[in-house]
């Protein structure tokens, strides 16, 4: 065998081994993830979680999100479009996964806004202005107050309400549930309790479609 052929053969073999190993590893992880979601299905949508859409809908998307996460921001309109397109068939449960430093403060703002029925409104504002208050992957609540002015939200009341110790409990509960369910990145989606096989727009859409077809 010529030397060049030996090298090419080595490259091809190593590439093959790598791809096969990656394939089997991912397949195994998907299975583990599915079993996990099944085992802890009750931890997906507890009573305290924020909901959007028709409660009677048969397809429920559970999203673990972080207001400081850029990908969550990108998927926000995607989910909204789905809810708009199938108002009677799909609803959403939002769970917190504040992985960025400082994000727990932003979640506290959201929970406080929830008491004024401004949760979704404030979340929209947060996503829209994300680049102004997320600096170097760090959420900076102080920078958000200036942005929030002029949106008809009672800021004083939010600042008061966000001191509520119950909010910290909710965050702890969501983080604990996320850990049980294997949530390590945001956003993480579950559709009718099923996790995505791999992360992506197409994967989310196809899982939602298959659940719609299975239930309607």
């Amino acid at each position, binding site marked *: 065998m010529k*030397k*060049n052929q*030996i*090298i090419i053969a*080595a*490259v091809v073999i*190593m590439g093959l081994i*790598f791809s096969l*190993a*990656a394939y089997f*590893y*991912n397949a195994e992880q998907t299975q583990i993830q599915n079993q996990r979601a099944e085992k802890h299905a009750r931890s997906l949508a507890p009573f305290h979680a924020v909901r959007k859409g028709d409660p009677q809908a048969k397809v429920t998307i559970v999203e673990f999100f972080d207001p400081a996460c850029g990908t969550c921001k990108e998927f926000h309109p995607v989910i909204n479009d789905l809810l708009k397109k199938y108002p009677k068939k799909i609803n959403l449960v939002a769970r917190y996964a504040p992985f960025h430093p400082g994000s727990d403060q932003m979640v506290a703002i959201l929970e406080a806004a929830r008491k004024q029925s401004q949760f979704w409104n404030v979340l929209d504002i947060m996503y829209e202005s994300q680049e102004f208050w997320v600096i170097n992957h760090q959420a900076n609540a102080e920078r958000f107050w200036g942005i929030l002015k002029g949106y008809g939200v009672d800021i004083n009341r939010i600042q008061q309400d966000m001191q509520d110790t119950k909010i910290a409990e909710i965050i702890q509960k969501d983080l604990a549930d996320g850990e049980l369910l294997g949530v*390590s990145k945001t956003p993480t989606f579950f559709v009718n309790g099923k996790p995505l096989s791999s992360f992506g727009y197409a994967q989310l859409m196809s899982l939602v479609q298959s659940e719609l077809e299975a239930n309607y």
Partner: protein
Amino acid sequence: MERNIHDKQASWTLIFVAWLLATLSTLSSLFFSEVMDLVPCILCWYQRIFMFPLAIILLVGLFPLDKRVVNYALPLVLIGLMFAVYHCFLFFGFIPEALQPCSRGISCADDSMELFGFLPIPLLSLVSFLFILILLLKARTQA
């Protein structure tokens, strides 16, 4: 003349095996980070910085054989080896954790660095750098 050809063959094989090791290490390291989602700690990053180029420059030195590649590769190997030694000392506790440079982010002495529960990744790196060093030094003396 014949001896010359024989020498050439021997150094080609030595550099080829060194390249195989470097490429295997590179791919394994990528497997840990990209497939298994293990976040590389800072010391891991330094070792990667000196391992990844070996997979490229040793290959260039084989097509066709240019023994000077050993001179270019050795500094990378030596520096990478020093980081690997330091990392192993840290991992096995010869250097107290408080002295480690990576206090933020991922700990360099974390349990997640053990593959299959018993093979520490820093040790794999050390062994790999060490073997590449020996092979290249051997190729150098072939001249």
